[in-house]
């Protein structure tokens, strides 16, 4: 359970893995077997392999084996090439990381080696801004006090600098000594916990005595962190390669399968069963017929005794004949269109981020349809919703609001005036901004001062103060130096009353060196400051200001000031020191003491800081909400900040429209009670037009996920909105897992390394290529530059992809079934049932292959250009996304429609051909060509009827393919050695050919058109209505703002009747949420019976798909 790391000892007895990072899936040797194995683990591929093998048996094959082997090998080659290419790219990026040059100390000398050659126990030497190549225990830094700063953004997403200390045993060692250091570190085996490192270190003589020195996470530098503000640091490698904390928490991304793919697989399975039934029935009939009838057919010359497998032959023939029921082309077609969907995302100019010059990118080309079926979005906060850039925007000093006009207090002339006039309140205000903090000023060689802050707010304040001429120059031991309008001011720092989330404020006590006064400077949340103001002060303006700022989405802090008498301070200071050193309940005691001095404050004003939301975030959330998508915010940030951001970006509504429930507790009991209470509230309020959201913190979440997973899952299904704060990366992933186990399609969006696991775990991972590096973007299926592109990604790309795939896949089945049913009909051929059931193919191999692979596949591929609605309409009516979410365009009932159509068309084609080409014209080549032409005509018109919009490419593909059919067959008819020599020319000359084909078309398409028209006009779906609106020109644009607003309102109050949540009524417990709300009932009673019918239909079909999902 433990590992012992011998520092700088190459002869160490135990060897650990080296620092080679590998994300590769294959090696050169195992590629072929492993890849084939993976490909054949899919049912469809196994099926095709079986068919292809059966076809090698000439006795039973109705067609040339090449007609299956060719496409099969092609498909496999394409998939394998793609995999190989992906893996090669992974190899290249690994290689780049592995071959990075790193300084390692060996035998007292610094050497440059490649990162992959680092071994456990090596001493690594890093310079400022270097990336840490593996997990290190810090041994020494350039700082005399043994401190260094790291940025852990890549690991946990937090951008502020963290201090790391060298272990006490190493303090004061010179670098030469460090290089020769020997010792042993006892540490746990690799794990993924980035908050914990419980280890010991013992240095060997001559360095120190044999004392055991405890190590914590504070003494480590973890892989992928960056060293900042420290000239150099060195440490000993304890975990390397894929065993680092980061490597362990990476997890292996599972291949993702979209809901559409799963549905297609299910349908394929169903068709396969149907096919088996057909084969068994026909095979049985065929065998009976053979025994009773065929023996009499002397011209067939059945041998009296067959081989032992004779009974199998006819069923197997039928199996092969029916094998085309499952279209081999569907996989190729889907792969092709999917990669085009991905390309469209890459190419999309509207999703190009001009600020960072990054285009969107679809790394996973296979899951675009899932984007259209998203039900839950789990989003990170910092950097995803916000820009992660705090800016001081406004302030209110002694009742005067600055920055209201321009939106930027730093440019407010009034404020600048006040400063130059030395208005005392303003000066004091600036002083607090500059020194009431824990910011570390750093002077670079050129003399410019930069600030390193743990908190982005403090950073913003100090920078703003500096711009307002109150420059924090230095902080050395306890002297704070400030430069105000080129006068140097000095303060002696007496105490820091630290920030805690309970106190919600922090203070510093300083002694002004100019006049020797002791002052308390305090800043904090309004509710933590304003009650402690000294009596008689006018609070109204400040409360108003805070409210006003909060509504603008600004983060507010109140600043207070109190002058202390020396005696009071001394007395208090004594108590404070006592409390600081107490062992039990230290935090509580300190808070108590602080309380004693933080009162009677003179409120100076309010600052307003903007963590700028990214552009368009509220609108994006609003639109996606209306599309029926639920949002959860998962952040590592503080609860208050999270709530504030949530408020400002429409995530939750403020009272009274919204209600926020808090789910917290420190132990199981408390958490359980809290959870129970919230569940009950949720159920109660679900009928009210109120937005209820709940807030949960990481500690409670941990307890919940351990003990109350079921009730939490129930809560999750009930709540459209939730905020989880202080959650760890693995908790984020666990939450995703929870949603997935409830069968929700989840999309996780994040920008930092802390989101990587969540992104990988989710059905769809979206990475924002933001300031926290590119980890998230690299791990994600889609990377976008800004959060606002999400709406386009989902509503435009996701929706179109889903619609197109739904059509393409069903059509592929339709056309395969069509030709297959014709073959079956031939076997059952018309006149006497069960006759001639021998498994003959009507069509020749070439025609069959060309039909499947060419004539019917190419026109339908152009459905990638099909748009049922324009992008604009979709954006205006995001509610229609429900069609995709609930899978209404691809489910067993829609499929049944296509199935019925193929049966009908097969009968039309076969019966008409058989009757029109009866008697003297029933020559087989001719007849099969007539039937094939009929199929081609029908399919061209089916595609044309089902497409919603026609670009040049579509028209070209549909009608060009039609022409190509005739050209190719004419060419084939001109080659004497082909079976169909002269057939086409003969047919062209026969009026009966054209008349037959037109008849097939008329009878085949007439009812389809009539039904479609009827449904389109009198049973229109929402999509149809919007199509009509859009194309008949007027209403959709004329609707304008008024109706848009009413839509907004309706969605706010009722959260759209189409909302996906109501479809989740799998359990009566979940029912009350929306569907049975009073408004909903009133609506369905009030509206006409027809509308009710329609709604019921919709619910039926969606619940259908739901059920299927559950099974």
């Amino acid at each position: 359970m433990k590992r012992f790391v011998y520092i700088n000892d190459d002869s160490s007895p135990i060897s650990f893995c080296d620092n080679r990072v590998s994300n590769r899936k294959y090696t050169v040797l195992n590629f072929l077997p492993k890849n084939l194995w993976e490909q054949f683990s899919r049912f469809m591929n196994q099926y095709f392999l079986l068919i292809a093998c059966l076809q090698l048996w000439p006795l039973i094959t109705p067609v040339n084996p090449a007609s299956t082997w060719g496409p099969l090998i092609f498909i496999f080659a394409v998939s394998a090439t793609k995999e190989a290419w992906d893996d090669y790219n992974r190899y290249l990026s690994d290689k780049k990381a592995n071959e990075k040059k790193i300084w390692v100390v060996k035998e007292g000398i610094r050497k440059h080696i490649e990162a992959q050659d680092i071994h456990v126990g090596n001493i690594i030497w890093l310079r400022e801004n270097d990336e840490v190549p593996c997990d290190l225990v810090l041994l020494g830094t350039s700082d005399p006090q043994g401190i260094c700063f790291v940025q852990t953004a890549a690991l946990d997403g937090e951008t502020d600098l963290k201090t790391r200390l060298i272990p006490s045993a190493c303090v004061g060692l010179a670098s030469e000594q460090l290089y020769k250091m020997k010792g042993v570190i006892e540490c746990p085996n690799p794990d993924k916990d980035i908050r914990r490192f419980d280890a010991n270190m013992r240095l060997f003589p001559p360095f120190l005595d044999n004392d055991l020195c405890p190590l914590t996470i504070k003494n480590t530098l973890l892989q992928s962190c960056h060293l900042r503000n420290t000239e150099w640091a060195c440490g000993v490698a304890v975990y390397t390669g894929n065993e680092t904390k980061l490597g362990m928490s990476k997890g292996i991304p599972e291949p993702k399968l979209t809901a559409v793919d799963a549905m297609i697989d299910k349908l394929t399975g169903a068709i396969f069963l149907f096919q088996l039934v057909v084969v068994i029935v026909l095979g049985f009939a065929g065998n009976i017929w053979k025994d009773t009838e065929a023996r009499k057919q002397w011209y067939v010359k059945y041998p009296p005794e067959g081989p032992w497998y004779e009974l199998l032959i006819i069923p197997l023939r039928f199996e092969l004949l029916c094998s085309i029921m499952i279209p081999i082309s569907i996989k190729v077609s889907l792969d092709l269109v999917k990669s085009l969907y991905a390309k469209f995302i890459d190419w999309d100019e509207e999703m190009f981020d001009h600020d960072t010059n990054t285009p969107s990118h679809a790394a996973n080309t296979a899951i675009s349809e899932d984007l259209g079926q998203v039900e839950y979005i789990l989003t990170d906060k910092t950097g995803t919703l916000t820009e992660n850039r705090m800016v001081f925007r406004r302030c209110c000093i002694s009742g005067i609001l600055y920055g209201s006009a321009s939106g930027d207090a730093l440019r407010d002339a009034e404020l600048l005036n006040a400063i130059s006039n030395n208005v005392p309140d303003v000066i004091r205000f600036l002083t607090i901004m500059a020194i009431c903090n824990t910011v570390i000023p750093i002077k670079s060689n050129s003399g410019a001062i930069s600030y390193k802050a743990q908190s982005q707010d403090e950073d913003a304040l100090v920078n703003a103060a500096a711009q307002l001429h109150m420059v924090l120059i230095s902080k050395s031991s306890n002297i704070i130096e400030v430069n105000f309008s080129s006068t140097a001011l000095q303060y002696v720092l007496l105490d820091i009353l630290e920030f805690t989330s309970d106190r919600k404020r922090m203070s510093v006590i300083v002694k002004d060196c100019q006049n020797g006064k002791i002052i308390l400077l305090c800043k904090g949340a309004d509710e933590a400051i304003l009650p402690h103001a000294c009596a008689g002060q006018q609070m109204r303006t400040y409360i108003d200001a805070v409210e006003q700022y909060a509504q603008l989405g600004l983060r507010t802090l109140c600043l207070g000031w109190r002058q202390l008498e020396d005696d009071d301070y001394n007395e208090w200071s004594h108590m404070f020191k006592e409390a600081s050193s107490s062992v039990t309940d230290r935090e509580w005691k300190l808070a108590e003491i602080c309380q004693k001095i933080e009162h009677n404050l003179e409120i100076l004003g309010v600052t307003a800081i903007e963590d700028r939301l990214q552009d368009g975030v509220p609108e994006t959330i609003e639109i996606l909400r209306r599309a029926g998508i639920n949002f959860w915010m998962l952040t590592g940030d503080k609860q208050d900040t999270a709530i504030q951001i949530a408020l400002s970006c429409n995530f939750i509504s403020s009272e009274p429209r919204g209600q926020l429930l808090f789910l917290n507790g420190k132990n199981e009991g408390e958490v359980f009670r809290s959870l129970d209470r919230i569940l009950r509230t949720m159920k109660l309020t679900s009928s009210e037009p109120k937005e209820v959201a709940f807030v949960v913190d990481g500690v409670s979440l941990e307890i919940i996920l351990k003990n109350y997973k079921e009730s939490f899952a129930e809560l999750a299904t009930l709540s459209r909105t939730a905020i989880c704060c202080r959650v760890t990366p693995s908790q984020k992933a666990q939450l995703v897992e929870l949603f997935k186990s409830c069968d929700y399609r989840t999309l996780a969006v994040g920008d930092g390394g802390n989101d990587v696991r969540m992104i990988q775990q989710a059905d769809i991972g979206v990475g924002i290529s933001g300031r926290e590096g590119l980890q998230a973007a690299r791990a994600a299926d889609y990377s976008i530059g800004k959060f606002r592109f999400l709406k386009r990604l989902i509503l435009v790309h996701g929706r179109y992809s889903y619609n197109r795939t739904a059509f393409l896949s069903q059509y592929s089945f339709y056309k395969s079934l069509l030709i297959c049913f014709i073959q079956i009909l031939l076997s059952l051929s018309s006149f006497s049932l069960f006759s001639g059931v021998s498994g003959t193919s009507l069509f020749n191999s070439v025609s069959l292959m060309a039909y499947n692979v060419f004539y019917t596949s190419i026109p339908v591929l152009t459905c990638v250009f099909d748009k049922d609605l324009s992008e604009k309409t979709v954006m205006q009516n995001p509610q229609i996304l429900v069609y995709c979410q609930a899978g209404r365009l691809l489910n067993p009932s829609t499929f049944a429609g296509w199935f019925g159509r193929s049966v009908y068309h097969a009968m039309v084609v076969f019966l008409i051909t058989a009757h029109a080409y009866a008697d003297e014209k029933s020559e087989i080549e001719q007849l099969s060509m007539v039937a094939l032409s009929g199929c081609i005509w029908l399919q061209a018109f089916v595609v044309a009827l089902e497409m919603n919009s026609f670009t040049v490419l579509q028209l070209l593909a549909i009608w060009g393919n039609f022409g190509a059919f005739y050209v190719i067959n004419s060419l084939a008819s001109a080659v004497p050695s082909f079976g169909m020599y002269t057939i086409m020319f003969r047919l062209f000359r026969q009026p009966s050919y054209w008349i037959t084909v037109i008849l097939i078309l008329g009878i085949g398409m007439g009812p389809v058109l009539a039904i479609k028209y009827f449904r389109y006009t009198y049973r229109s779906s929402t999509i149809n209505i919007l199509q009509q609106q859009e194309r008949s020109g007027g209403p959709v644009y004329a609707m304008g703002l008024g109706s848009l607003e009413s839509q907004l309102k309706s969605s706010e109050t009722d959260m759209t009747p189409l909302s996906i949540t109501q479809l989740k009524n799998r359990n009566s417990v979940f029912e009350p949420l929306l569907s049975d709300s009073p408004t909903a009932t009133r609506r369905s009673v009030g509206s006409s019976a027809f509308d009710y019918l329609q709604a019921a239909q919709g619910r039926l079909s969606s619940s259908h798909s739901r059920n299927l999902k559950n099974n």
Partner: protein
Amino acid sequence: MNRTGASAAEPSSGSGDGTGARRNSKRPKYSRFTQQELPACKPILTPQWVISVFTFVGIIFVPIGVAALLASNHVVEIIDRYETACVPPNMTDDKIGYIQNPTIDKTCTRILKVPKDMDSPIYVYYQLDNFYQNHRRYVKSRNDQQLRDRSKANDTSGCDPEKTTSDGTPIVPCGLIAWSLFNDTYNFTRGNGEALKVNKNDISWKSDRDHKFGSDVFPRNFQNGTLIGGGTLDSNKPLSEQEDLIVWMRTAALPTFRKLYGRIEVDLKVNDTIMVTLKNNYNTYSFGGKKKLVLSTTSWLGGKNDFLGIAYLSIGGLCFFLATVFTVVYLVKPRKLGDPSYLSWNRNAAAQ
């Protein structure tokens, strides 16, 4: 937007090389194709459009139907089923014994009456029912190479089970289809005793004679086995001249089919009687198949076939009917297309 983009792109690319942001921009190239903005027409199913389509189809279909029916009615067809009638009365219980006994004379005489004037050419067909030329085992049993090419005489692959004679020499033409060649013959005389000549030239497809059946390929070992299937071939005539075989080898897709026997190139008048002297050689008794002799004139649409005409007329009628129904529904219960109030969320808003 462009302006801000350009200025913002500057610093990020500046770190790379300073040659300017424009070239380094990863901005996707604009084209209507990549932006999915290709101009598209988006037709919708308006009532006007649908009604006119149905009307139009009706207008097209009805005349075609009438023409097809007229053509079919114009065709005169004489069908005579003879396979039962040609069995001598004493053998009706043992038809198979009758047909398989080579010593019995299979000659049979049939009298046909011409119902209407028939203009030459009059096509003579034989029709078989319940004969599965489409049987898998049967339809595959041939070798096209062998038929075409003299040098491929030994190529009998696929011809199972009629490949070679018992001593292993290949049969030309091999396979079940050739082996089961239809061998009834017909001779026609008018009522007045005048012989009607049946022209058996050019009854097969010219393309078959020229390219599928070799002019230098002669039958060999044909019907030499113990089991005789159907007709024999004159081993002195090349396959390209064996037109009956060529016709037979164009297999039929359905179990009922007609094959051309020959042409009578004189006109027949109404109420003429024709005496057919036929040799009833071919065994359909084993499987209960029917044999029919068909004399038929032809039209632009082919032989007598009412199917197309009736189908066209009924579809045309149905289209008119649908067009009327749609018009009536459209007039009686008009429904405004794309009315926003039909949208469920708008309905909802109105309800509140």
